[in-house]
């Protein structure tokens, strides 16, 4: 038996996966239900990071196999020669323009206002600038974009306290703001506007990338992991309350805040193949707007992994 166990241990595959401390973390908590054990041979170790920086460093260094990242960051990494490919979309757009100024009702009221955005150059910033431009404003002169509060949680605080009157926020902070203050009202659903402009569905905000080395070394494991991830997303969407407990346990945020947000986080699972068109379109739009944000080139087809 001892020999058997040793053999088992040697066959054991540990999948090292990274998610961010937000909805991408929500979507994977289902995988931790069985302490990360997917089958007899495969264990997934999920690490939650506060910023993409740590994920990028460890991915480039080979300390991680799989990571959930903003779509443009994934494309950017690929363009910079980091050996990763995208495997699936796990999260779609969930951004809102929120305001606590009852005077703003029309989109035309945005003119000459200060709009607070958490983090310059992130997805909220890109989408805000794309849409502002689409609405016919010049983001340099017609509105003032303010990046001085980088943490979305802090921006939410300021919005709730009424010290900031117009902000672009992602989930789960949108839900938090709406639930904490009656004064905060949704002004503009970024996703709806995107659909109207492009004539497609929601845009892919978060994707899962896999390192080439992992695909080569464990070709059989990838479908298992992806299957399990798909499972997890479905479970989380179906059981927000249970998922909330796991979210708190893993240390992402309090269940009380996460649970109401889950339905609005647009957690999905689409394989790269299924999501190809949406991603390609999204990346092309980003490229047209600011090519450095996708690494200077729209990724070719080999960026999309088949399994």
């Amino acid at each position, binding site marked *: 038996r001892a020999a058997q166990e040793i053999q088992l241990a040697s066959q054991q595959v540990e999948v090292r996966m990274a998610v961010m*401390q937000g909805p991408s973390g929500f979507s994977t908590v289902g995988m931790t239900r069985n302490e990360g054990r997917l089958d007899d041979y495969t264990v997934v170790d999920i690490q939650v*990071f*506060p*910023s993409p*920086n*740590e994920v*990028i*460093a*460890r991915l*480039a*260094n080979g*300390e991680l196999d799989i990571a959930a990242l903003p779509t443009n960051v994934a494309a950017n990494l690929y363009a910079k020669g980091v050996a990763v490919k995208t495997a699936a979309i796990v999260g779609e757009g969930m951004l809102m323009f929120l305001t606590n100024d009852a005077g703003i009702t029309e989109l035309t009221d945005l003119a000459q206002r200060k709009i607070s955005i958490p983090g310059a150059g992130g997805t909220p910033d890109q989408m805000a600038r794309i849409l502002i431009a689409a609405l016919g404003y010049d983001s340099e002169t017609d509105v003032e974009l303010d990046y001085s509060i980088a*943490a979305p*949680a*802090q921006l*939410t*605080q*300021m919005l*709730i*306290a*009424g*010290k900031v009157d117009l902000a672009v926020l992602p989930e789960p902070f949108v839900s*938090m703001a709406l639930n*904490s203050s009656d004064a905060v009202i949704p002004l503009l659903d970024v996703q709806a506007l995107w659909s109207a402009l492009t004539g497609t569905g929601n845009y892919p905000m978060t994707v899962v990338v896999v390192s080439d080395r992992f695909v080569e070394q464990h070709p059989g494991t990838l479908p298992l992991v992806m299957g399990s991830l798909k499972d997890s997303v479905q479970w989380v969407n179906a059981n927000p309350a249970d998922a909330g407990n796991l979210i708190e346990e893993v*240390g*992402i*945020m*309090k269940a009380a*805040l996460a649970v109401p947000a889950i339905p609005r986080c647009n957690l999905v699972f689409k394989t790269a193949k299924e999501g190809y068109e949406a991603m390609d379109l999204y990346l092309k739009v980003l490229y047209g707007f600011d090519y450095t944000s996708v690494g200077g080139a729209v990724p070719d087809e080999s960026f999309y992994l088949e399994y």
Partner: protein
Amino acid sequence: MNRSTWNTNLITALSVLILLGIWQIGAVLLDAGVILPTPGTTFSALASVVQQEPFSLNILATVARALQSFLIIFLVGGLLGILSGYSRSLHAFLVPLLVICKATPVMSVILLAFIWFTSGTVPLFSAFLMGFPVMFIQVEQGVKLISPRLHEMTVAYGFTPLRRLIHLVIPSLAPSIITGAKASLSMVWKVVIAAEVLTVPRYGVGSRMQMAQVNLETAEVLAWTLIAILLTAAGDLIFLSLLEVPRKLRERRSKLLEAIR
């Protein structure tokens, strides 16, 4: 405790009270609990934070990081400072390194830092970048203030370098070393906690602050800040009492010498 110690303690207490008063008034005027809760709310958050389970673990992790960074800064900065105070060549050699330490924001090298260190040690690294120049500059300058007359005396009386170090250099540097240590200690806490906020290691005061922040629990953030302030104050007290040790040792030594008749 004599009369004047009593007085200064009274003034310190008064100052704390005034600050609490300003806080209370500010919180009431601002009237936004998510941004600035009242001292009362904060103290009740503090009470519940203290009962949270891995409370002491979080504290210990932060204290360990702060202590480690401080020791590293103290030893490396002190040693290099002394050497470079004596050697113009070493000074010239270290100038670029010092400028790099001074100018490079952690952010520029954070990707590298993540590769070389685990997320628990990134705070140490940030603290080193911040505190090393302060300690170094301090001690290096201190070397220049060593009395040239006493130095000459040790030369004339053939002190070995070690004896000169122990009996002239280190006692002369003591004020510089103490201020350097105080000044770098004054940053280590804050830098370590700030880096914990950014990198969220498993345990740490900064990690808990970050979590509280994400959950919009401002009172809890401030409760952890109070804990940080208390830790710092405790650290200062311990440091001050450690400063008494050499004096006591010297007194004991002089008693011992007295005994040898």
